[in-house]
């Protein structure tokens, strides 16, 4: 018989494992420690292999969307890919919001979905859906693995594609029979995708040209984004060095917070619709805009034909499709941020360049804009202002290892404006997709990765109810996440837009029939807190920090407060509204069309 001729050595070389064992082995060989998932019929073999393994830590969520957001929080706070395991059909469709969120924000995820057996595919079988079809537009790449012989290769390619170039989510759909069948295992170093080669090194000529443009600029500004964070901590270090060396002002997108320390005098605050007056005016009047790992999102640019109209623009991005997509630029650089920044620093030093003598005058102008104090608000002695709540949260958590996640809406913008981030990977928010319900499960993922850190979800009472069920996950795994709910009893941002654009007709934006969040926390086995007056806020925040258990903190804030400053949609950066007190903003018909 044939088998008799196989020597033990040869048998070891052609290691045969079941599909589900291949999955577990590949995850471990890729350095994975934590998986977020939910079992079901079509992934039972993988769950069985997981049961027999004692290295991988599985976090059982309460809904697959929660698994994906948790993996996103895990990935953003560690720089490592997040891994998700869910079943076919509804397991996969529930993951779609998270996948889209991760695609928009360039978060590396490897999502494994079970699928009905190959002979049932296309038969409308129980819990069957066309997972690769549904997830094609919301992943960086995806695979349906019909043959166990391809499984090990696909597993490793998936990690390569998710984590390199512009990171993003990938889906591996594995039919149940493939999970049972035996096939060969390949180690990660035996696999390399045959065509996928993202470009990371910058073109030397382009770098040299960029640096000379920088030295010649009279009114420059750095505008950085999530690409710096995704490139890794080295990119943030190099960015800080370049900003110091040039003496230029710097602003960043929502996604880029923490790459440059917010306490630094060269920091202007965030740019965009709810960015600071000084950041937006600086971008509007500059003569050189240096975009690093940012993508000229419509929330940043406002009216595109009025965006930074008098400037030359340099755009560094790892993804060539971002160049000239929204704003035409003068000098594109396709590269990884750390590589390009290192090269820029080298050229600046080698050519012994200095900034233009006009730079102090530019700073003087910026100081004038800063004098507007655009984040100012009128505090109250009776009502907790949401801005005040965030200021106190920041003050009382300073000096700790603190990670902040958010939901989506006014509270998110206030957190962006007021919480000062000093380091990258400490700020997790849904930027591109704007997913309400992101922050609570993301906090679960962050806390899993950083068990001893203080992890706070700055939330709204509407958003947080979208994924509230993950409190149960936090309780199960002893994750002491803090859900800091700015409860204004409204979908605040919706209400703000209805006030500005729809004559104050608050159509369905009131949070009717709210649960008692303190009792809800207790029902989950967590801790509930409530603050209703500014006077009791500090003590309650300190209590929240001190409790080593999950906390739902119901902070009752002024329901009427609006988020300023604001660039009305369809307007230019120099048309910011600073407060309610100003004249009614005029929003053009065209502006009303914009989201």
């Amino acid at each position, binding site marked *: 018989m044939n088998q008799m001729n196989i020597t033990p050595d040869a048998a070891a070389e052609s290691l045969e494992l079941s599909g589900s064992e291949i999955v577990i082995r590949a995850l471990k060989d890729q350095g994975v420690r934590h998986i977020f998932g939910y079992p079901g019929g079509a992934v039972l073999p993988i769950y069985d292999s997981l049961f027999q393994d004692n290295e991988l830590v599985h976090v059982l969520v309460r809904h697959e969307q929660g698994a994906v957001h948790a993996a996103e929080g895990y990935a953003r706070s560690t720089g490592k890919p997040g891994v998700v395991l869910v079943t076919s059909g509804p397991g996969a469709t529930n993951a779609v919001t998270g996948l889209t969120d991760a695609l928009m924000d360039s978060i590396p995820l490897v999502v494994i979905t079970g699928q009905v057996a190959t002979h049932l595919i296309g038969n409308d079988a129980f819990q069957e859906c066309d997972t*690769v*079809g549904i997830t*094609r537009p919301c992943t960086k790449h995806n695979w349906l693995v019909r043959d166990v012989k391809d499984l090990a290769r696909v597993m490793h390619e998936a990690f390569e594609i998710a984590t390199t170039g512009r990171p993003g989510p990938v889906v591996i759909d594995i039919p149940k029979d493939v999970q049972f069948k035996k096939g060969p295992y390949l180690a990660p170093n035996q696999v390399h995708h045959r065509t996928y080669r993202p470009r990371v090194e910058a073109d030397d000529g382009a770098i040299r040209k960029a640096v000379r443009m920088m030295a010649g600029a009279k009114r420059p500004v750095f505008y950085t984004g999530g690409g710096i964070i995704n490139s890794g901590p080295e990119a943030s270090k190099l960015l800080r060095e370049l900003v110091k060396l040039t003496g230029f002002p710097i602003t960043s997108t929502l996604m880029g917070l923490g790459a440059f320390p917010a306490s630094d005098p060269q920091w202007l605050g965030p740019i965009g619709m709810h960015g600071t007056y000084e950041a937006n005016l600086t971008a509007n009047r500059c003569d050189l805009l240096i975009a690093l790992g940012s993508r000229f999102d419509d929330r940043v640019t406002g009216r595109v034909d009025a965006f930074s109209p008098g400037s030359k623009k340099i755009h560094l991005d790892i993804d060539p*499709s971002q160049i000239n997509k929204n704003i*035409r630029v003068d000098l594109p650089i396709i590269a990884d941020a750390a590589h390009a920044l290192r090269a820029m620093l080298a050229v600046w030093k080698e050519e012994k360049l200095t900034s233009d003598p006009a730079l102090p005058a530019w700073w003087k102008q910026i100081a004038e804009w800063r004098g507007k104090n655009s984040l100012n608000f009128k505090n109250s002695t009776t009502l907790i202002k949401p801005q005040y709540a965030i200021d106190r949260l920041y003050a009382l958590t300073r000096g700790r290892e603190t990670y902040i996640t958010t939901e989506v809406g006014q509270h998110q913008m206030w957190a962006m404006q007021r919480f000062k981030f000093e380091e990258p990977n400490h700020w997790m928010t849904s930027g591109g997709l704007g997913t309400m319900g992101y922050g609570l499960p993301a906090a679960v993922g962050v806390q899993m990765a950083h068990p001893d850190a203080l992890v706070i979800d700055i939330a709204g009472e509407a958003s947080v109810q979208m994924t509230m069920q993950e409190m149960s996950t936090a309780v199960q795994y002893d994750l002491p996440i803090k859900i800091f709910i700015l409860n204004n009893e409204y979908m605040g941002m919706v209400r703000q837009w209805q006030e500005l654009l729809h004559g104050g007709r608050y159509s369905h934006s009131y949070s009717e029939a709210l649960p008692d969040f303190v009792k809800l926390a207790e029902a989950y086995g967590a801790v509930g807190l409530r603050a209703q007056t500014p006077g009791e806020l500090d003590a309650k925040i300190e209590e929240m920090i001190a409790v080593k258990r999950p906390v739902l903190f119901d902070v009752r804030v002024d329901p009427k407060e609006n988020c300023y400053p604001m660039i009305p949609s369809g307007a230019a950066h120099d048309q910011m509204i600073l407060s309610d007190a100003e004249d009614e903003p005029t929003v053009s018909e065209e502006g009303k069309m914009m989201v």
Partner: protein
Amino acid sequence: MMQKDTRIETHTIVVTVDNEPGVLARVIGLFAGRGYNIESLTVAETDKAAHTSRITAVTSGTPAVIEQIKAQLGRLVPVHRVVDVTIERAAIEREMALVKVAGTGEKRVEAMRVSQVFRAKALDTTHSSFVFEITGAPSKIDAYVELMRPLGLVEVSRTGVAAISRGAEAM
């Protein structure tokens, strides 16, 4: 302020892809999802050993949109190369069509005569109909079909454009 170039141009884009399941859906989904036009699309495996297929897409849009289409195609993982033959190469573009015409008498004779001028070949003949095969640039096929219309045109089947560069070099 920069003037936006709003001219609509037609470009022929050749994409070399891994011949794997779903690759065509990725390309078509990209065009549909981002609102790009497809005027014609042809696809077939061109290298069996390397498992690569060649997709030829004719698309139209402003220069900025054309630039985006190429960049977005380049992002797809199974895509090897994207070549805009309209600007990068002097290309030959050809299309094949099968054209059915029905009629008798003078119209039938005229259909035959026009087809001879266009070097279209009769593939099927009955006493009252022809099926012609014609190859040429898309504009030539347009002209031929227009001439056939009053002569009893019944049905047209077109392949879409296939393109290749002139000279000794591969694309």
